């Protein structure tokens, strides 16, 4: 692990397993062993913001990590995205079958409230972003870019390749918790 200072009250941890560190750090915060306002896992890092006092990292190394929470989400998908054929030809396989058979985990959230970066695709399935992003991607679109799959929580511009859509509402402020996806949630795509 490498700790980089990030401004006046931030620490950026470069770690091998950000999701495990996220769970460990959150548990430590709940126990009062870590004081900070935000814990933001990402692809290879965890950002702590509003940190008071540098924690004793040796006590926090995720060997003692609590197991991944049992939260699991099935996402029913209509496989009718505009890039479905392009993805099928890049993969030489049926995208619906590949995605149904892949066990995804939310590596981190970002981009928009409720958007989870879903890790689990083997490297040979990684895809580039579109050369020019779409001005409007409909809410619920199931999309692929780089090592990740994702679901657009609301209509927005976007450069990911669209393979389908779901009717699940990913982020709803009238629900507790509002986001269906949190770091560590395991996700399975099914046929709608």
């Amino acid at each position, binding site marked *: 692990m490498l700790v980089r200072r990030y401004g006046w009250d931030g620490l950026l941890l470069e770690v091998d397993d950000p999701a495990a560190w996220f769970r460990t750090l959150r548990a430590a915060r709940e126990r009062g062993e870590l004081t900070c306002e*935000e814990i933001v896992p990402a692809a290879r890092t965890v950002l702590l913001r509003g940190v008071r006092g540098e924690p004793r990292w040796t006590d926090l190394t995720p060997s003692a990590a609590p197991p991944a929470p049992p939260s699991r989400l099935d996402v029913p998908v209509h496989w009718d995205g505009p890039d479905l054929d392009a993805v099928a030809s890049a993969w030489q396989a049926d995208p619906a079958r590949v995605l149904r058979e892949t066990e995804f985990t939310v590596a*981190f*959230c970002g981009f928009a409230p409720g958007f989870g970066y879903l890790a689990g695709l083997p490297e040979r399935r990684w895809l580039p972003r579109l050369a020019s992003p779409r001005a409007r991607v409909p809410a619920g679109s199931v999309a692929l870019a780089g090592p990740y799959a994702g679901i657009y929580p609301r209509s927005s511009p976007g450069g990911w390749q669209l393979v389908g859509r779901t009717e699940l509402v990913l982020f709803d402020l009238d629900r507790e918790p509002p986001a269906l996806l949190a770091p560590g949630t395991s996700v399975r795509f099914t046929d709608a």
Partner: protein
Amino acid sequence: MLEVLAPGPLATVQDLGRVGYAELGVSRSGALDIAALRLANRLVGNPESCAAIELTYGGAALRAHTSVWCALTGAAAPLSVDGRPAPYGVAFGLPAGSSLAIGLPRYGIRSYLAVSGGIAVAPVLGSRSTDTLSGIGPEPLNTGRILPVGPGDPGARAASSVLPGAGDARRAAAPPARDAVSPEVRGPETGAMPASGAGPFAVDFVPATMPGGEIRLRVRRGPRDDWFSDPGELLRHAYTVGQGDRIGVRLDGPPLARAVTGELPSEGLLAGAVQVPGDGRPLVFLADHPTTGGYPVVAVVHPADLGLLAQARPGTRVFFHGSQR
């Protein structure tokens, strides 16, 4: 209650922001010039955390449906209540039925209008702030919008009563009652100012620190300064404020050359992060920043200096200073 007669270019409700949801992709948001928000709240006797209205380039008007105390801080704009001048940086009464007009500030961008009791729209995830990036929080204000006002806070009253001379100063500063302003429109319910006896403080002087032609921002290098061939260039060059909004401010100036090519996997961002996209020209994130981003952050601006940047108009010169490491 307040009614928005005209919102100006952009008016939003803002408080100190929403903390603890960044892991879900929800940024802190909140007032861009936090010091100005806190001051406006203190002037009207509110806790500093109350929600107020953040105006962008002024040009707004509101009508009071109930009597409130108001104070404007941040970008100094001319004010008038029913056509009579009202002071900047000082609490003044806005009797029920009267209208407040806020003109165009000469310097700065964002003005903060606090009202006694605070703007009491329903909080979302613990904050009343509008997040312009994610769309969380109340909609930006539009003409005709009715804003509820809170009942005021007994704690603030208790605090004010222990300050020596505060009571006298308050009485001296008490605005004329409604009947002294325009008796012809006085209705049975609209007469007096809030009868708390604990109005806001009078102050003789509120320092206005709006940037003129140039600003100096403290930075600390990192976390990705090692991605640039000479990150110290940031401190040696002068930059110019370009396009900006609540998400961030673009700076024009000599591009920073990268030492590491390739893409950085997305990582967490915070307000003040000086991110350098592919064209080498820095962008400083403000309150509505995305929670993660994939361009390297060369340095971070001190949180206390972000208000200055949020008030700097396009064309303002920007100098960074700080330790070389």
